[in-house]
Each structure stands twice: as C-alpha cells, then as structure tokens.
C-alpha cells in the first residue's frame, strides 16, 4: 500500500463495481434458494452469513472502505463491537431468564 491511500480518495474501476454487483445478485439468488431447503438450524445461520458477505462486499468496495483512512475502518469496527455488545448483553438476560426453553 502506498502513501496516498490514507487520503481515502480513490476511483474504483467500474469493472470492480460490476463484479461486486454480480456477486450481490448471486447472493440474493442463493439466499432465496437456500431458504427453500430444509437445513434445520442452519437455515437462518446461512441466510445471515450470506447477508454478512454481501454487506462486507458493499462496504469494502462500493463504499471504498478498503481504501479509506484507518479511523474510518475503526469506526466500522466500533460499530460492529457495540452492536454485538447490545445483542449479547440483552441476550444474556433473555437466555438466562428461562434456561433451556430459549
């Protein structure tokens, strides 16, 4: 990585945008197809996993996060961290309110 990448100011080649686009559309198709298969507990897990991959693609390439200043990446990281904190700490209460029946 060279110096100027800190300025967060890059032109993304449209070719990359199209590839990302194709991957995203494929992701939508894949989610729908997967949801019609009986995968038991893995149905929602797979759906969220695909969504996470899609979201990462959008963030990294469409939103130029890959070429953004470190602090911008840091803010995304802290967002994910806080979101997980919110989920985990609320779940802590709900799961332990009724062990087993959750």
């Amino acid at each position, binding site marked *: *990585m*060279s110096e*100027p*990448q*800190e*300025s*967060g*100011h*890059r*032109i*993304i*080649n*449209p*070719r*990359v*945008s*199209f590839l*990302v*686009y194709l991957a*995203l*559309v494929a*992701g*939508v198709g894949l*989610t*729908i197809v997967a*949801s*019609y*298969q*009986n995968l038991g507990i893995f*149905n*929602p897990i797979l*759906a*969220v996993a*695909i*969504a996470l991959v*899609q*979201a990462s693609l*959008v*963030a990294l*390439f*469409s*939103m*130029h996060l890959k*070429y*953004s*200043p470190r*602090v*911008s990446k840091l*803010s*995304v990281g*802290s*967002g994910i961290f*806080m*979101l997980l904190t*919110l*989920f985990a700490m*609320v*779940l802590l209460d*709900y799961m332990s309110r009724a062990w087993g029946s*959750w």
Partner: protein
Amino acid sequence: MSDSTVIAHDGLEAGHHEHSPHLHHQFESVEQQADAGNFAMWLFLLTEVMFFGGLFTVYMIYRNWYYPAFVAASHQLSVKLGGINSVLLITSSLTMTLGVWSAQLRRKGSLIFFLMLTFLLGVVFLGIKGVEYKEKFEKHHFPGANYSLQSFVNPASDPVAVAAGDKPLPLDIAQRTEVYFSLYFAMTGMHALHMIVGMGILLFMIFRARSDAYTTGHTAFVEYFGLYWHFVDIIWIFLFPLLYLINRH
C-alpha cells in the same frame, strides 16, 4: 492495487492549498478536509448502525420467543416482490457507484444519467413496497385496532396461507403475529424513510449537477451521499432474509 487508481489532487498539483476554491477555512489542506469529511460520514453511518441495531435487537428477541407466529406471518410476504426489490436496490447501488465514478472523471452527462437512474430505481422500489403495504392494509395485517387474525387462525380462508401450506395456529400464538407485523412495518418503514430522504438529496444533486457543481474536481458531496445510499442498501440486505425468508421450506 490494480482495481483502483489514485487521483492526483488539485491541491497537490497547485502546490499551495490556498488556491483550492473548495478548501474550507478551518482546514490546513485538501487532504485534511477530505479525511475529516470521510471520517465524519462514517461516524454518521455508525450512528445509523446503532439506530437500526435497536430494531434488530427487538427482532432477535421476539423471533426466538414467538417463532411459530413469525413463520406464519412471514409467509404472508411475497418472496417474489421482496426478491425483485433486493435486486432493484442492489442495482441502484451499482448505478450510484457509477455516478460517483462519473463525477470523479468529471463527466457531467453520465453523472446526471446515473443519478437519475438511481432515483428511478428508488421510485420503483418504493412503488413495489407500496403495493406490498397496500395488500397488508387490505388484509388488516397492519398492527393496531383493526388487526385481523383471520389468515392465521383459519389459513384455509387465505390463498397466500394455503399456498405456503400453513396450519391453523392456536389463538394465543396467532395473536403474536401482530408483534411480527409491528416489527415488519417499523423496520421496513424506517428503511423506506431513509430511502425517501436519500431520494430528496438525489433530486437536489441532479439539480446541482446540471450547473457543474460536482464535475470540477470537488466530488466529496456525491461520494458521501454514495456512502449513505450503500448503507441503506446494506440494511435491506439484512432485512430481506430476516423478514421474508423465515422457514420457507
């Protein structure tokens, strides 16, 4: 990196930052201004993440509590319309990327073209959303005083439920479908509200782009709006499987 190229800044070429007409007084250099703007925009999106995060927390709790009700209620949504909307929004994300690209290459015509295309895709998305909402209102699936449990206690009366192969739910479980629809309208409503705000800004940008506001080297506004629009796309990427695709097999 081969997938992108670095822009040479006006400020760098001119050697002295005072020469850039786009430099605000509080900054020392164009780079500092660009970094600060980019960072501020990401921080703003961070607040948006937490805003929707509250809704996703609520969703997580109730989906686990009232899973059968969520399944039956989710079957009332049309995967076809939802899927089309997903593709539409992803496409509008692409056209927005190309809009930013046009602005950076200072192509006014193609910038306006892509902004308009993005706007149109947004209109179609909201139109389809409106069709879906209308159907829910007509079937009294909108939460509140008029909420009807008909499709869930007696699925035989509802072709959509029949097609999904739903079995009648006991009354107490069927009542919980209202929680699902509360969340459905809250989440997609907040998302639609963000899109409407975004489309207002798009109109403003199309108007301004005609007088060369973004094609003379100062692309920051278009770029920041692009970030916002992609973020709205990301929210939908999560909403679609979570709301439409619960236990479809």
